[in-house]
């Protein structure tokens, strides 16, 4: 075991898979000699060379097309979108091309492509860098969307994503990259995609969230505990497909739920979670499911992030409202 930050765990996952399978390739803008703008690919170019870890020309759509072509030559590409705000340039490549390859070929071809990208607010990037666009991609059939909340999960989920024979969008919250360390095994391990994790057990209320909001929810839960509200917290880890089973089981126990997302409210992941709860656990509820999200504006300029992003206080308020309904 070693202490690792989430970004170190991510690098470690790629290194592990590059060593294990010659077909794994890492490419994107500035990922080779420079090791990526966040240093997520630090050291990989030196260890594996230009043939395995290489820079691309600066064009996101080109990167996605390149990944599909390389997948058709039996490679297992890990492509990086430098900031998730740039992903619209590759929307066709991801949603129409990679995610549809299996169906369009009647199962003859598949795209074992991992799309890595830093996302999420709170680190004061310039505009159009940080957006929480995960909901758009959760709507794409044929694509899995994974969002880790900690170093241990990041390594296991990323290895699982790389080994998966379908395209996986792996979103790395920028605020989590270096915010804390934890024990991460040196050997390879996988965490099954599509499985949520109960990160805190409780009996009075279920908080369902993912990404950076998991830490925020944990802090809120500590405060709520002092006020007599015992929270269970589910870290979704994969937002598409959703682990409805884990959510429903928890609600059968707690009878109350609040869904927390960093993204804007409109048509987000929380809406889908709430709809699943309505379908599968409505009669177990003692209160309407609460929702905490950012407002439905565009993602703000850096200086407004602090007032825009959902925080601990928002979660506490909503949790109390749901419990006292």
């Amino acid at each position, binding site marked *: 075991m070693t202490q690792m930050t989430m970004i170190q765990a991510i690098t470690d996952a790629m290194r592990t898979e590059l060593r294990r399978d010659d077909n794994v390739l890492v490419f994107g803008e500035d990922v080779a000699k420079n090791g990526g703008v966040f240093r997520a690919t630090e050291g990989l170019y030196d260890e594996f060379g230009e043939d395995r870890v290489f820079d691309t020309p600066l064009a996101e759509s*080109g990167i996605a097309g*390149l990944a599909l072509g390389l997948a058709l030559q039996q490679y297992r590409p890990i492509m990086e979108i430098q900031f998730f705000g740039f992903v619209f340039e590759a929307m066709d490549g991801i949603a129409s091309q990679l995610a549809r390859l299996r169906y369009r070929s009647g199962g003859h071809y598949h795209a074992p492509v991992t799309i890595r990208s830093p996302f999420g607010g709170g680190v004061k990037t310039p505009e159009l860098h940080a957006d929480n666009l995960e909901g758009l991609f959760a709507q794409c059939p044929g694509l899995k969307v994974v969002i880790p909340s900690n170093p241990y999960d990041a390594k296991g989920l990323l290895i699982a994503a790389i080994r998966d024979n379908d395209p996986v969008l792996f979103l790395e919250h920028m605020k989590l990259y270096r915010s804390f360390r934890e024990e991460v095994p040196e050997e390879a391990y996988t965490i099954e995609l599509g499985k949520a994790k109960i990160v805190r057990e409780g009996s009075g209320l279920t908080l369902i969230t993912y990404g950076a909001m998991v830490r925020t929810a944990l802090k809120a839960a500590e405060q709520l505990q002092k006020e007599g509200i015992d929270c269970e917290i589910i870290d979704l880890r994969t937002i598409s497909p959703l682990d409805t089973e884990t959510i429903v089981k928890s609600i059968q126990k707690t009878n109350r739920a609040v869904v927390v997302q960093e993204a804007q409210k409109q048509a987000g992941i929380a809406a889908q979670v709430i709809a699943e709860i309505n379908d599968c656990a409505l009669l177990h509820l003692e209160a309407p499911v609460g929702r905490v999200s950012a407002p439905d504006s565009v993602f703000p300029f850096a200086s407004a992030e602090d007032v825009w992003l959902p925080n601990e206080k928002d979660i506490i308020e909503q949790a109390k409202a749901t419990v006292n309904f």
Partner: protein
Amino acid sequence: MDLPVNDSGRIEDFFPTLRILDTQGHVINEQARPEISNDELKELMRRMVYTRVWDQRALKLNRQGRLGFYAPVAGQEASMLASAFLMDQEDWLLPSYRDIPQLVWHGLPLYKAFLYSRGHFEGGQYPEELKAVMPQIIIAAQCTQAAGIALGLKKRGKKQVAFCYFGDGATSQGDFYEGMNFAGAYRAPAIFICQNNRFAISVPVEKQTAAASLAQKAVAAGIRGIQVDGMDPLAVYAATKKAREHAIAGDGPTLIETLTYRYGPHTMAGDDPTRYRTDELTGEWEKRDPLIRFRFYLERLGLWSQEDEEQTAEQARTDVDKALKQADRVSKQNVTDLLGFMFEKPTQNIQEQLDAYSAREGDQR
């Protein structure tokens, strides 16, 4: 630094149209005539005639509702088939939706082409030995994928090439440039074949770009570019042959612009070409017909006869009928098929929906 200027100062003057046969099938550029055996000449003619007959038949079948989505190809046979003639069995093909003939001659069974036209997934279930991607709908998306396939071929050390086909309208897309540029930067073995048939649905090429030729767009990517008479099978063949040699020698990609024309509508889904082009223009292009000029050329060489023509046409008609019957035998698609192709293993939501739909579909049977 010396800029690439010539006397006129116009970049298009670096891209003269390569033409070897005139409209009467006379060799007008002996120097450029490619090495090609008599058997190959004959086979190329056979493929063009066969494809013309099948295309005519497909239009009728579409009108009868027996085929679905179909983009006519008549007029573009030389552009399509004389270029694809250079493909090795292991070369990769990235076609657009009009480039079904190249797919079929590269190994797609005709009945699968018909299934694709009908919108059936079995039309995309390619035989293992067929190295090709399904026809691309998103204009120019195949260009970036071609760069990826070509880079993969290079990494694998294969002496193979990616053949990427698209139209004049595609050159306005970012992906066209990105694909050429990526392939150029990696010196990847790709050939980008732009079939300039003058109209992207209705918009004339003059309104797509201020560039006087599309071939010259290669300059921006730093790769080779050549413009050829796309109605001249020998010119298309010669340019493609050279491009392939460069590609496998590690000299990187080439952009080939073929000047061609589609006689028919954009697709059979209601396009009316009289709204945007004149019969006179179509008539002019028909005089340059690739089959006519190649027939003249081959007849003079004693390689083609009326009998060859009739036999080929008959073969095409028989094959189309046979393929149609085979396509008719394929079972209908249902929702469970569709759900089953979403992932290698069904996810939680997909499995639930599979169960629900298989129960429902079971009831219907």
